């Protein structure tokens, strides 16, 4: 695409143009960036601080219980309980503490809480505490203290390990591939033949049939769901096979993808030079030979465009998968799985962000690698002046 910098100067200020576009781009990308960063964050940090603060330390208010009466030792008439709220070698740091839950930051590190009964409590930044009292502690459970802890940013693959392992997202990834690859290849083949016939063969009803195809381009999927589901159920019970099968969904995606495929490919194929096809005909080549040896190789850009469309569409589809595929582990696709996780782990953002990223990473890669074809396909699909 060549760009002309001089046309349509709607906004006169150059700086304003840059800034305005920059703001839009930031607004557009921030949600995805947030998801991406969050998916690598430690799940404890993820729930307390926003992703934009992922690179700075996070603060958390929490509580800990000191050792109980069983752990106290007596030194010089004083009863002492010492221990630590943090694990040894932890990268967390305590910055303040207190005796009441509503003021966990009443005392700074180095200060000492003096209770009315004479007991004192001291807490260090590394989590180690000492409680001292002239009277022995009586309760089995230790007293509770509150503190504010900061933790340095932690980035981890744990979330991905979790979703790919125990959430079985890896299997869903394979299922999605199993659906997508045939559901992309089959319609291309079928549509290429049909598109060739619509562009270079004469047969009765050709124009009428193609107009039907143009009409079908916009027929909503919803119209087909119930009849096709009933059809599948009937076939399923007739031949005693599972109504929800991969074959069923491949055929469904093929059927629903065909109008666009035929339309795009026919537009492209009919724009090929008439001379070369007619001279090949005169040389005695059959339609089949012309199709496989000339038209298909020449139509690679259009085929690629549609392949990307169909791939993205099938990969990202939820509706057809929900209706025509089961929800068992061996059939559930990524989108369907993601939707279930959204229902059952609505607040577990470490699972959701990582799962969502697993679900969108392949389409994003395809998109960025083959954007050129994608754009070309979009243009030829909707702009035929």
């Amino acid at each position, binding site marked *: 695409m060549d760009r002309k910098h001089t046309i349509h100067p709607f906004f006169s200020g150059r700086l304003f143009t840059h800034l305005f576009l920059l703001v839009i781009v930031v607004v*557009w990308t921030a949600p995805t960036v947030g998801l991406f960063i969050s998916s690598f964050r430690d799940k404890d940090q993820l729930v307390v601080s926003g992703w934009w603060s992922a690179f700075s330390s996070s603060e958390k208010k929490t509580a800990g219980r000191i050792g109980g009466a069983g752990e106290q030792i007596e030194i010089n008439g004083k009863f002492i309980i010492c221990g630590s709220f943090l694990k040894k070698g932890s990268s967390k740091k305590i910055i303040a503490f207190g005796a009441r839950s509503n003021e966990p930051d009443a005392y700074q590190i180095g200060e000492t809480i003096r209770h009315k009964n004479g007991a004192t409590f001291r807490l260090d930044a590394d989590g180690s505490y000492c409680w001292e009292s002239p009277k022995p502690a009586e309760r089995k459970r230790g007293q509770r203290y509150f503190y504010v802890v900061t933790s340095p940013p932690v980035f981890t693959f744990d979330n991905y390990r979790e979703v790919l392992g125990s959430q079985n997202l890896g299997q869903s990834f394979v299922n999605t591939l199993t659906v997508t690859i045939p559901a992309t290849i089959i319609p291309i083949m079928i549509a290429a033949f049909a598109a060739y016939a619509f562009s270079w063969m004469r047969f009765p009803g050709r124009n009428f049939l193609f107009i039907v195809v143009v009409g079908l381009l916009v027929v909503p999927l919803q119209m087909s769901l119930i009849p096709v589901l009933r*059809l599948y159920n009937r076939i399923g019970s007739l031949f005693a096979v599972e109504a929800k099968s991969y074959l069923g969904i491949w055929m469904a995606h093929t059927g*629903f993808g*065909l109008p666009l495929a035929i339309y795009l490919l026919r537009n492209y194929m009919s724009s090929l030079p008439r001379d070369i096809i007619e001279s090949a005909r005169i040389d005695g080549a059959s339609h089949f030979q012309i199709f496989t040896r000339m038209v298909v190789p020449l139509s690679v850009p259009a085929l690629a465009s549609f392949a990307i469309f169909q791939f993205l569409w099938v990969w990202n589809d939820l509706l057809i998968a929900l209706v025509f595929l089961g929800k068992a582990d061996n059939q559930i696709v990524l989108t369907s799985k993601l939707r279930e996780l959204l229902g059952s782990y609505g607040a577990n953002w470490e699972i959701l962000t990582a799962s969502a990223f697993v679900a969108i990473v392949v389409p994003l890669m395809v998109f960025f690698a083959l954007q050129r074809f994608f754009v070309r396909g979009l243009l030829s699909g909707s702009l035929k002046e």
Partner: protein
Amino acid sequence: MGVGLCAFYFWGTNWLLNRLLSDKPDADGIIIRKQHLRSNISPWLFTGPALLLLGTYLVYPVFETIKLSFMDRTGDTFIGLANYRWAFTNPEFLQAVTNNVLWLVVVPSLSCVMGLLIATLADRVWWGTIARSLIFMPMAISFVGASVIWKFVYDYNGPDVSQIGLLNAIVVAFGGKPQAWITIPFWNNFFLMIILIWIQTGFAMVILGAALRGVPDEILEAARIDGANEVQLFFHIVVPQIRTTILVVWTTITIIVLKIFDIVLAMTNGQWDTEVLANLMFDWMFRGGGDFGRGSTIALVIMLAVFPVLIWNIRRFKQQERL
């Protein structure tokens, strides 16, 4: 397994066609007849699989759905207009229609405006290609994926605690009160619409951008010499020039809006007054064992809304072919 079956299909078709087409005639008199026969048959061999699939998956279902909309929940007993009577007195359905109309007004218009705006801006800066690419990116993300992304933006942690949702964090930073955005009736519709606008603006931008570049420079220059300022130029010269393209983009997004389902299902499942037709239809397909009659009725309402676009597309296509 999948690829194997696919390859089998490919070779099957291939072999069949090959066999029929390479059928060599043996006597002079038969050549003509066979050639004639071949050229009569081969188009149907080429289009056959496609027509069969289109028939099964799109044409037959249209008629079947019309029939089913007059049937009861099992799809076997005729009940006349009862489903339609139910629909137009059912508050849920009426709300879905209202919400769909709202979506239809907001999403295509904002997507087109934003698309046109970004296309215009991106043509004027050196990093326009990168900007376009980033704006375009959401098109590759599934509606469910986009829903997770935006649910995270709208996330609400409860009052008086730090917010991890971007929107609430911004609201708090400006001194506002955090809200559970997607549960506020009426306005939550707009928060769902933003997701679709976010996805579709890239589409509008690409198509409209190409059309903008197609506007002849001479016309612009002539208008400039006549003393038109840039804003006048844009609204009086550029927009009329690309009017058809705007309409195409508008109708394409309109159809996507009419079928919008995944976003509502994933974000709210129609709760908090966000129901739309496609989600309601899906719901009725399975609710209480499934009601095919009511489901079909709702599908048909969507189809009726699409119908004007269908007619317009066909008319436009016929005009193009005549040129």
